[in-house]
């Protein structure tokens, strides 16, 4: 049964990818990439990669689509056709693809128990993480404890990416945008038109924020964690911005505050590492945080997940603010 579902989902995925290639209207491509993300999440769930599916669910349809839309709002809705037919490029792509397919022949079959990936460190993670880390969700214990250093790197990457986007797009002329919006009279009159939407969203935003907090603090026991929680929390803010305008959203939390919060998240993560060093352990070795190693692990994971969550949330909202203030300038 699962095989049939997998095959059907993969067929849909292939069809969507082909359609994305064939269509040159950028808007249609954005819509289809939303479907692509939904299909990916379903596939991940059916292949038991629940935490990956959770990330795809949080990012794929919501924030990704909104950012892509802001981009075509600021640029163009039509893809430019290539000046010539790049036959050589096609040849290179086909050759590389053939080599890659040839390479996969040496790889162990999917789910093969003798595959190297199941023998190196995986048995230790599976058997010992309950005693060593004490987290029910093994993915969480690997990500935030065994591989805590990698996750610190990823958080710094997100932080840097956000700073780069804001540095490139920036908030130049933001005041002007606010004035223009007010001059166009779309602050109050516009709102009255969408009464149903406004009330529905007002009811939904607290639920979204609450669910984000649940994902944040439930990461030890189920799928999810700081990254997903940050993205969902940011989705709540984007809802607010879409409905009540950029000015109102920036009055709730300004870009300056957001950049401070983003830095605070990374500092929390790094600070936990430094604290463990000062308390006589290795970098990010949470065992020394409390007398009982398991309690120490629990506290350490809680703190670094909080750091990841705040950084991801503020960077996502910051990027969205930067994109939408840009869009306002072009209108």
């Amino acid at each position, binding site marked *: *049964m*699962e095989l*049939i*579902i997998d095959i*059907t*989902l993969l067929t*849909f995925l292939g*069809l*969507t990818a082909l*359609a994305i290639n064939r*269509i040159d*209207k950028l*808007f*249609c491509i954005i*819509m*289809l990439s*939303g*479907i692509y993300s*939904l*299909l990916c*999440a*379903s596939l991940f*769930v*059916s292949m*038991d990669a*629940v935490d990956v*599916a*959770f990330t795809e*669910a*949080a990012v794929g*349809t*919501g*924030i990704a*689509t*909104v950012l892509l*839309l802001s981009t075509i*709002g600021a640029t163009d*809705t*039509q893809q430019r056709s290539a000046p010539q037919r790049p036959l050589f490029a096609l040849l290179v792509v086909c050759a590389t693809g053939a080599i890659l397919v040839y390479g996969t022949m040496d790889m162990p079959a999917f789910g093969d128990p003798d595959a190297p990936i199941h023998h190196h460190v995986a048995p230790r993670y599976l058997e010992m993480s309950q005693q060593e880390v004490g987290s029910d969700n093994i993915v969480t214990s690997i990500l935030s404890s065994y591989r805590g250093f990698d996750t610190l790197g990823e958080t710094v990457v997100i932080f840097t990416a956000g700073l780069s986007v804001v540095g490139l797009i920036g908030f130049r002329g933001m005041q002007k945008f606010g004035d223009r919006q007010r001059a166009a009279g779309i602050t109050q009159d516009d709102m009255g*038109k*969408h*009464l*149903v*939407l406004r009330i*529905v*969203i007002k009811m*939904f935003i607290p*639920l*979204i924020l609450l*669910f984000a907090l649940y*994902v944040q603090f439930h990461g030890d026991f*189920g*799928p*999810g964690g700081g990254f997903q929680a940050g993205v*969902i929390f940011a*989705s709540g803010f*984007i*809802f607010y911005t*879409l*409905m009540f305008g950029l000015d109102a959203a920036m009055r709730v939390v300004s870009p300056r505050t957001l950049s401070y919060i983003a830095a605070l998240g990374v500092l929390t993560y790094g600070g936990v590492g430094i604290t463990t060093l000062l308390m006589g352990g290795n970098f990010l070795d949470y065992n020394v945080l409390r007398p009982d190693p398991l309690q120490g692990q629990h506290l350490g994971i809680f703190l670094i997940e909080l750091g990841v969550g705040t950084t991801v949330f503020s960077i996502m909202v910051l990027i969205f603010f930067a994109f939408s203030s840009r869009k306002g300038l072009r209108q």
Partner: protein
Amino acid sequence: MSSILELMPSVYAGASLALLAVMGSTLVRAILGPTAFDRVMAVNMFGTKTVLLLSLLGFLSGRPDFLDIALVYALVNFLSTIAVLRFFEGRPQVVKQCSTTDVDLDVNHDADPDASGPTTAMEE
């Protein structure tokens, strides 16, 4: 009572197959269009079907605690729909640019962005 419980896996399997069929026809609408609103509607519906499929997959594999993922989609799926409709709002020429055919789209008649915004959100 036990016979009903034994029947449940095949019920879940049948429901999943039916959902996949619906998702396939929605995908056709999303690819063929032709207007932008067909695609918006298709994506929104595809998201709703994904919520259902994810829930069913959880019960099929006997781990309904993965309903969290379906919940995320139920909460944030209509974000993109609202963003798209806000994007089109009051800009009928953009709607035309975003449709694949040259059909003369009567925006004010059957596909008014102001009218379809709240209804689409309500269906969630």
